[in-house]
């Protein structure tokens, strides 16, 4: 069967394929760097295992918040002989003082907006 307007059809198809796959090859060229959150150098442990902290830190923070604010349960958490205050500002940020390199590194990459800092102070934000 003869193909009418073969040149136009094939060119059109080629342009279509290029446009549709644009996001794929664009990201191949302009790939964002995989985030590497800055971990504290001299501290080797956290309140939870790495995998748990990586996937569920937000749940832990919400639990802490509800316990402290709503249940008046401010019991200090002890892991491996070290005591941790149940607090973002006074707990987490003592070991992870750099918000840009620890929090925003991944949160910007994942496009998950944080609202912690609307109210809580970050360590460097003294003035």
């Amino acid at each position, binding site marked *: 069967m003869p193909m009418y307007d073969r040149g136009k059809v094939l060119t059109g198809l080629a342009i279509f394929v290029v446009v549709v796959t644009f996001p794929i090859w664009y990201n191949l060229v302009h790939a964002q760097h995989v985030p590497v959150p800055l971990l504290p150098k001299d501290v080797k442990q956290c309140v939870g295992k790495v995998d748990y902290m990586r996937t569920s830190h937000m749940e832990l923070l919400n639990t802490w918040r509800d316990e402290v*604010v709503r*249940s*008046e349960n401010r019991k200090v958490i002890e892991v491996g002989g070290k005591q941790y205050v149940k607090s973002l*500002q006074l707990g987490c940020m003592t070991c992870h003082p750099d918000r840009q390199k620890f929090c925003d590194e991944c949160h910007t990459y994942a496009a998950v907006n944080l609202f912690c800092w609307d*109210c*809580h102070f970050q360590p460097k934000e003294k003035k």
Partner: protein
Amino acid sequence: MDVKRRNFLKIAGLSAVAGLGVPSAFHHLFDDAALAATHGEEHGAGAAEGKKEAGGHGGHNAESTLFQYGMVIDIKKFAEHKGLAEKCVSACHSEHNVPDFGNPKDEIKWIWVDDYEHGFTGYSQNKTKVGLNDLPVLLTCNHCANPPCVRACPTKATFKNEVGVVVMDFHRCIGCRFCMAACPYGARSFNWRNPREQYANGNYKFYKNGINPNYPTRMRGVVEKCNFCPERLAVGKLPACVEATGNTKAMVFGNINDPKSEIAQVLNSNFTIQRNPAAGTKPSVFYII
């Protein structure tokens, strides 16, 4: 078949009577028993509901907690120590990063100074002691035993905790301001402006330019008020305002439901009044006038 008009009307009339009469007759015959049963059930349900309301959380008379933090404010002591009341306000507002926009419309206050006349509007102002209205009276959240703001809050952002403090959970506040309408003491302030507003030099517009990096601010659209410093009580300190009074005993803080506590003894040995007692809120802040 040939139906005469006369016969048709007869049959139609009889059918209508039968159609209307028979079901109602059935009702009478069979539903009497069933009806009685449902009525009984309804009555039972009603009684159970009534019981729940009386003992439950939403009633107009919330049960008082076993532990109730409270405060006694001695106005005479504040009269003796000039500037002490302002010192208390300053201590609180600096501790909690309360913004100061220099504008009464946007004012945020956790504790503030007013006079007897405006603090105790329910009491007779006729022939009061000369000079009484010149004395500073510290006003703050009364941490009522029966708090109307808690009932008004649709998100439970404000609630009464187990030590009797009416706490604000700023995370949960949606800024509806029902609590402000419910509070008869004007103890709640709304953040019309961003509390993190800065001057041109980068300083926050906080009270007296102080900043406490260990305490968070609030955000725009959130209601705030005195919380009796739970973060300080947790580490064994007194609330900031009470600490500011030092050894003057102008403010006494403690569990008013414990007869052995200092505050209970102060309450027992002095005549005290509360703000707007007729509102039935059972305030936990007492005044020695």
